[in-house]
């Protein structure tokens, strides 16, 4: 029951308003037909499932309905950063 800052609403809201949408940065292969079954399985099923801070996707499902990215600790649930898609998350 943590709070998440929605980068679009620009406000902290209860986790209940959001839905988790899995690990971030799992890009769909550009040419699915051109890759091996292994590479395809890696995209569809395999996950890093990192212990510690990682980037993941959430959607503000009961709010603005926007998907965005969150850097959250899977150990403490602490959130370091949130970012809209396409935003620069390097700094």
């Amino acid at each position, binding site marked *: *029951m943590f709070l998440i800052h929605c980068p679009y609403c620009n406000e902290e809201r209860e*986790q*209940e308003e959001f*839905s*988790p949408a*899995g*690990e971030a940065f799992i890009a769909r292969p550009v040419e699915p037909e051109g890759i091996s*079954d*292994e590479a*395809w*399985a*890696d995209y*569809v*099923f*395999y*996950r*890093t*499932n*990192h*212990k510690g801070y*990682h980037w*993941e996707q*959430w959607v503000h499902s009961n709010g603005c309905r926007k998907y965005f990215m969150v850097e*959250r600790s*899977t*150990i*403490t*649930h602490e959130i370091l950063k949130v970012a809209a898609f396409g935003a620069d998350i390097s700094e």
Partner: protein
Amino acid sequence: MQKKYSWYSLLKAGLSGQDWDQAIPLVEPKSKYDVIIVGGGGHGLATAYYLAKECGITNIAVLEKGYIGGGNTARNTTIIRSNYLRDEASSLYEHAMKLWEGISEDLNFNVMFSQRGVYNLGHTLQDMRDIERRVNANVLNGIDAQVVTAKEIKEQIPIINTSQNARYPIMGSSYQPRGGVARHDGVAWGFARAAAMLGVDIIQDCEVVGIEVEEGRVKGVKTTRGDIMADRIGCVSAGHSSVLAKMAGLRLPIESHPLQAFVSEAMKPVLHTVVMSNAVHGYISQSDKGDLVIGAGIDGYSSYAQRGASRVIEHSAAAILEMFPIFSRVRMNRQWGGIVDVCPDACPIISPTKVQGLYFNCGWGTGGFKATPGSGHVFAHTIAQDKQHPLAVPFHLDRFTTGALIDEHGAAGVAH
């Protein structure tokens, strides 16, 4: 030599004040073992036990980062059943069920396996279709299963609410008479003690922090208590499987999620069987101590913290009251969470990996306690022979690539 548990020994100890032997001896890790099992949960300990008992390998260490049986084994609602839908899964769980039926004697340790029966309720027409399909499949596979009507449920469980006024009225249920519960701690300890009696080293407070791989073969592990060599390593670390995989440079098709449970204050027995409902998200039984043991739904985000959202607990309490309105003034005594390792097809992975000598047994998600003896048994054979036990074959990691998934979402439900 360890003292056997029996009425006689109990009487003798009671009269003489003579001591019991160590069930779980304190040992220092050796520098090398034939097999290392990472993870001292029920599955890991069972694996070690069957390796020692049936596979002729006794130079084994079980490495546990905390205390044995302290992971999901300590946190689950202990529901045991084998009425799964797919042949592959039901064979595996039924294998476990058969082992459960003789496990206390085999281990010389009463794990309080109690076949009080399990009901899986249906609340919609589609639930009932699924139940019919599953029960028929079970019966064809020789697994005890029945479809029961709401009226029959009410006769067996008079305190259940079968009224049409419930938000999701109970339409019927599947019933497995041989299903039930067992004492979770006892399961871990019973396997540990029996394994230790066969010479297995059980080493606690020993976290594996690295896996040594050379030319595609495992060499050993790095731990918080030093390096330990082994030719074969079996990882049975449930919620932490991805962490161990990463140490060997692998990824797994797994996500770790919080799954919560809670118990009520203890009351006189009033619920004599296990009742589960996937549709309203509540799973309940009453333990021999008298507390209601209740399982909640899974939290959707990934986490290694053993806690989840209180909203999930509230919802489960509400679901339990939908089914058992008389529990409204009963109080929650304690609430906790575990970390479950969830696989995309709701089936486990019992498999060798690309790294020679490294095996994984994981992905049991919300429902692996019931498989404990079976899982350990087939995994032991898989490690010993470097070849999957026949019952484990469908659970190879390859299935995610070959497409041979075993979809158990229907029977595994949302939890347990």
